[in-house]
């Protein structure tokens, strides 16, 4: 074995030399070349990122108000004409800056875990290179060829065995300890934090801010800790914001928590990491193209400071109140994730389409019961989905929205559905 050890040492040096550039040098050649997802309705980029100065009066909303005075204008009326400043922010391309391996962390407490990642990466490359080079070298050197024979050597060597037991043990102890230390920092929120309620269901996120504003994009301030209080309405989901290095399962009938402290304003990815059924890949998808690819997902919007975040809260609240019912309904259709299961063009999806020709008429339920398709029926279907179902659809496949819709929101949804009747 005396001949092996020097080789090992040489390999160590060689792989360190080759391993390091991957870690550090790779960061320059980041993968920014990939085109950002561009939604069909995305406003032309170029609006200043901190557009709060002009956005406070929400002129977009006022315009929408004027145009949609007459309800029942048909499905063409769905969706506001112009977007509020905060939605424009959310539509901005996602920040993908980072190394070849990972997007840059924008969470103040995540640097340590990133350091762990890159250290273990270097360590792994070193060990793999050592083992691979040894193996390949031995295979070439000791390959069978005429006249070549195996030479006798010791079949065991306790010193060597103990060495390669103790070294991995020490490495593992270190990795565990630092991993544990950094984990504790990542999961322990500070005393003071902006608290946001998260409700997940198939297949949408709903973020409820402290003033009651709800949204499917997560708006947070930069430089202030944000604590998420999360629960699910149906199955298990998992809140995952890769740039924040935050992941936490969201469980039904139980609260779980996550927190982060965003360091850089921008728009970041938000995904569901626990498999939850058909549209698991498209949780909170606001727009899709013809292949079904989601072009505008819900995102994490990091505002530049607390003031801008507060402005978002105020403007959003004002906008939510000002919208006429049909507009509000059309907005909620997307924001509450109704679009995941219902269409507005008459074609059935997981649930029946909202565009039904039989408004005001008697319809037959799956159990043969005759019901009048009116406001009461729609309201019951939203609040108590287990009560009735149209033929061909499953009773209670939809979660109840009891307690999650304000009166005007409920009225807005009903008005919107009614407006689709033609």
């Amino acid at each position, binding site marked *: 074995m005396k001949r092996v050890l020097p080789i090992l040492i040489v390999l160590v040096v060689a792989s360190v030399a080759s391993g390091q550039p991957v870690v550090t040098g790779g960061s320059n050649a980041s993968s920014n070349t990939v085109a950002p997802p561009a939604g069909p309705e995305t406003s032309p980029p170029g609006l200043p990122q901190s557009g709060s100065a002009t956005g406070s009066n929400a002129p977009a909303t006022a315009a929408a108000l004027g145009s949609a005075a007459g309800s029942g204008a048909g499905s063409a009326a769905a969706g506001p004409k112009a977007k509020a400043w905060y939605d424009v922010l959310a539509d901005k391309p996602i920040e993908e800056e980072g190394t070849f391996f990972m997007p840059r962390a924008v969470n103040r407490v995540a640097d340590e875990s990133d350091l762990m990642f890159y250290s273990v990466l270097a360590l792994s490359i070193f060990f793999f290179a050592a083992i691979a080079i040894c193996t390949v070298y031995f295979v070439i050197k000791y390959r069978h060829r005429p006249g070549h024979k195996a030479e006798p050597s010791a079949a065991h060597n306790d010193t060597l065995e103990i060495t390669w037991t103790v070294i991995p043990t020490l490495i593992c102890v270190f990795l565990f300890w630092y991993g544990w230390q950094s984990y504790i920092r990542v999961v322990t929120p500070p005393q003071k934090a902006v608290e946001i309620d998260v409700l997940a269901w198939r297949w949408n996120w709903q973020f409820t801010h402290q003033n009651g504003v709800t949204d499917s994009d997560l708006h947070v301030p930069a430089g202030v800790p944000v604590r998420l209080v999360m629960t699910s309405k149906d199955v298990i989901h998992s809140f995952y914001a890769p740039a924040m290095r935050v992941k936490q399962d969201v469980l039904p009938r139980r609260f779980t928590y996550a927190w982060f402290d965003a360091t850089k304003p921008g728009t970041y990815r938000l995904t569901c990491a626990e498999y939850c059924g058909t549209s698991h890949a498209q949780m909170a998808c606001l727009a899709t193209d013809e292949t079904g690819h989601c072009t505008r997902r819900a995102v994490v919007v990091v505002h530049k400071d607390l003031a801008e975040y507060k402005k978002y809260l105020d403007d959003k609240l004002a906008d939510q109140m*000002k919208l006429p019912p049909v507009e509000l309904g059309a907005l909620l259709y997307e924001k509450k994730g109704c679009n995941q299961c219902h269409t507005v063009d008459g074609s059935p999806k997981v649930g029946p389409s909202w565009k039904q020709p039989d408004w005001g008429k008697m319809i037959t339920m799956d159990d043969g019961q005759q019901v009048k398709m009116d*406001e009461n029926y729609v309201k019951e279907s939203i609040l108590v989905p287990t009560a009735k179902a149209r033929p061909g659809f499953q009773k209670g496949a939809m979660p109840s929205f009891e307690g999650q819709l304000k009166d005007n929101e409920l009225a807005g949804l009903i008005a919107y559905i009614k407006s689709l009747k033609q």
Partner: protein
Amino acid sequence: MSADSHGDDHGGDDHGHGHAGQSRFIQHHYDDAQHQFDSGKFGIWLFLAQEVLFFSALFVAYVLYRVHHPEIYSYAHKWLDVKFGAINTAVLIFSSLTAAWAVRAAQLGQRKLLIACLATTILCACTFLGIKYLEYSHKWHEQILFGRYFDPCISPGGEELLTRKDKCAGTKSTVVFDAAAGKPTAGCFEISKLDLDPNRVGIQADCDVQEVKISKGADGKPVEGASRPITERCTDELVELLERTEGGAHVGDMGTHETTKEAESDKKVPQKFPCWRPAYQPAVCLDLTDADKRAHGVGGKPTAGILVEYGDEEERLDVKIKATCKAPAVAVAPVDALADRANTPAEGTKAVEPVHELSTHEEQELESLGPPPEHTNMFLTIYFAMTGLHGVHVFVGILVFIWLLYRAIRGDFTPDYFGPIDFSALYWHIVDLIWIFLFPLLYLIH
């Protein structure tokens, strides 16, 4: 099962030639009888280890739910009959003895004793299952079942479970008070009809609640007009909605005047839902319709009736809520068992508050009289899963022992060859052992 695997000798392409001078049940690939026996014994021990792991998940679930919800266990164990459980424990322990005895009889070649022991074991096992059948069928009848099917009639006195058919028929539960006993004895709650809110445990009486229109008469005094029955029970959501539409129809936490008004003309305003709720515990039923009865109640106190949350007669806006409760089946004295914890209400008084802080014991007692805590079904789930799986094992044991009995009568077993009896007896012991854990864990909770 491994015990079966080296039993009789037909089938397969086994050569069938036994080892010279040994039982014909020694298989070809074993060196000798001892080798076969040792292999079988090691196999059955591994099988038993597997069985322990198989049950272990259920024990873990038991512990977990008990740690998280002790109240469920202390409430629900009363449905299990210790008497039945104890008899079953004794029966199983005795059958384990006869099973062990059978092994010895086989080793000594005492064929008659072996047959007797095996037969006794089978008999005991059948007795065990018979008693389990009684327990299960009773619970089935009372709908004291697992998960979604948990919807029992619960006697408020806790003495006797009344049959669902007789006492829980209809939509409303009835409670009957017994003067002599001083507590409610008959009638039952229906879980599905009760609010599962610990702050609102109540005994429901069979009440008829009416909403009466009030208008000003000529003399300025209110005149009762048309009435309609209120069938809906108050839930938190309804109350909230009621309050919101009542107090804030025009303020509205969201939306401005104009838009909501516009919407109002288009859609229905959230309706006022008159509703009623049962009285706070402890409650006494008042019979409000029969004034005479009220006046002549024993000791001049009200005998029966109900307290609804807003009082017996609550005027709100232009309506009045009137609760009319049926007299209990047995017109009786005020309910002492409950009255000692509360003021006996005077006519028309509002919900009764307890006069003193209840001790823990009293609270428990009170709780055990009330409806079950949330998710009590989990206890029944655990109970049925554990005893059910154990029952399946007992049933399999019966089949195995019948097979052994058949072979014993045929005379297969000799002092040279008694492995199957030994292995089956070991299996039977583990089944017995599991029951010995189940009995205290499920029946003897306090």
